[in-house]
């Protein structure tokens, strides 16, 4: 008898689709049925369309806003390509959540420095909004965000909101500027250059700040070098690792790095943990 089947997904309905960039859409989803869906920032799901297969996608909404689930999906392959063709009211299949998320409880009281590149803001947005919804429990919040161009900035509504808040500090930059970007008058935007150029401006302090970082491989590499130079301890830098998690439950071997499975032991790791993992970055 097959009792609990960990591979069986549930049906979720698309209630809203937000075009973030030319190749990133955010899907706001509601679950059909009553099965509770309890998750932590940093966890991921396997999303699928029958006939196309599954894709591991990190959750970008926060459990502090439990009415819906949001996934921001970049069009990169077969499954994500088909997802981009869906409309409101369509149904997708989801199983999860999987993995070890960000340690939001342990982060209480800490001064937090977020460093994000491109779509890498998606999992961090979950933590940022979690922290903002429980603002009193956390210390200072600084968000540094970089993207290739103005068009590639995701979550522009959140960015505008974060930029206007006095209880946090957002600085954004793009690799290649444009008039629409440079002429803006809000203090958080208008900069041109890679995200590491924001390090000096944000008054980061390795003695005080705990850094959460996510983005493309090349950005993480340079940002880590900058953070280490600034004296950050590897145990106080937290990131998420990308791998093609197929099963999500520690069986299929695709996300194996050293003795760890990214799908169960991660995707969130401290740099100290990663330094012991041979090939992680």
């Amino acid at each position, binding site marked *: *008898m*097959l*009792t*609990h*089947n*960990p*591979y*069986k*997904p549930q*049906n979720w309905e698309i209630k809203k689709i937000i075009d973030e960039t030319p190749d990133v859409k955010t899907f706001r989803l509601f679950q059909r049925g009553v099965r509770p869906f309890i998750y932590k920032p940093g966890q991921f799901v396997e999303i*699928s369309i*029958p*006939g*196309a*297969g*599954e*894709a591991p996608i990190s959750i970008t909404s926060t459990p502090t806003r439990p009415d819906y689930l949001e996934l921001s999906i*970049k069009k*990169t*392959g077969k499954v*994500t390509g088909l997802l981009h063709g869906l409309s409101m009211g369509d*149904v997708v*299949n989801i199983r999860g959540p999987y993995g070890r998320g960000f340690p939001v409880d342990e982060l209480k009281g800490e001064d937090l420095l977020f460093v994000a590149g491109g779509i890498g803001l998606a999992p961090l947005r979950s933590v940022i909004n979690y922290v903002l919804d429980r603002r009193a429990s956390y210390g200072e919040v600084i968000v540094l965000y970089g993207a290739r161009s103005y068009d590639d900035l995701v979550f522009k509504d959140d960015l505008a909101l974060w930029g206007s808040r006095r209880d946090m500090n957002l600085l954004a930059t793009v690799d290649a500027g444009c008039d629409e970007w440079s002429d803006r008058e809000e203090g958080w935007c208008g900069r041109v250059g890679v995200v590491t150029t924001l390090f000096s401006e944000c008054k980061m302090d390795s003695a005080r700040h705990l850094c959460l970082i996510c983005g493309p*491989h090349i950005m993480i590499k340079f940002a880590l070098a900058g953070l280490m130079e600034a004296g950050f301890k590897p145990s106080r830098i937290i990131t998420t690792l*990308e*791998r*093609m998690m*197929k*099963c999500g*439950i*520690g*069986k*299929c*071997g*695709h996300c*194996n790095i*050293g*003795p*760890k499975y990214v799908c169960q032991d991660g995707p969130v790791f401290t740099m100290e943990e990663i330094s012991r993992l*041979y*090939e992680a970055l």
Partner: protein
Amino acid sequence: MKIIPENKLADLINKWRSDARHVIGPKNVHGDIVFETLEKDEQPCLDFLNTALPPKEFLFPMRETILNFVPKEDEWTPFTNLNEGNIVLFGIRACDVTGINLFLDQLFLSDPPDPYYGARRKSAAIVVLACEEPDEYCFCPSCNSGPALATGFDLQLIHIGDEYLVQIGSPAGERLLNGLQLETPSMDQVGLKNYVIDECRKKCRKVELEGVEEIIKDLWEDEIWKEVSNYCIRCGGCNFVCPTCYCFDMNDRVVSSGHSQRMRTWDSCLLRGFTRMAGGVISRDDKFTRLRQRFYHKLLFWKEKWGGPHACTGCGRCSRVCPGFIDFGEVVEKIKSRAGHADT
């Protein structure tokens, strides 16, 4: 312990079949020894070194449907027609049973348990046929996994002269012999059994694995991985024949308009696409990094994650099938020769 004459083995297998059990055993198919269903009146081939593939496919098929999607039902339904019945895996070598007991069970039955493997495993009775003769690649004694087992079987048969000595390893094994009038072996027969196993053990190659996990730790950047992988044609054969390899891929198959199946298929860490991520980035793009992963996983990572032995049962299949003649034992020797000479 019981004794069963060679010519009574057929009765035993027929009895299992009449008990509505599905008997799977070694057969000679055009010169290859493979595990297949033994049909009515069909008898196993018992004169063989080892089968081309371990019998893991009967618990974890090369390709299986795990979920079905039919639009009418608007949801994925678990595929439950596992066709497992009550199977008897007859004539398995000790090394391959070790692969199931210590490795596949550990992975698939740990939390959350895999329901497909679990259902098949529960219904499978294991009848070991101990080895009398190794070939030049066999090194099960070095892995404590043969030529015969001490525990972990339902029945174990050891060939002694014109008879088989039968060891009963579980209540299920006891039930497999229900209704048969079998004699208890004499002291001489028990002595003969021990002699047969010892002789086989002595002839096996020695591959000293103890401590290799400590040495390999310092060899991540060593040149040996590039040297060894020069001979790898990335066919993945070593993975597919390995009784401890378990990696799989998951993908969908469209059966007809709207009807899809979610499949899983054996996969191999030697294949380039194994670590392909969104956007096409491949984390183990260089061939040597994939070969290195295989050896690190067998000799260190599995042990670090689960404890217990190295993830090798000494069956020798990876060495036998490698078109580039990459030999597991030789690589272990190479690793040990680098002790204290690590580049890093």
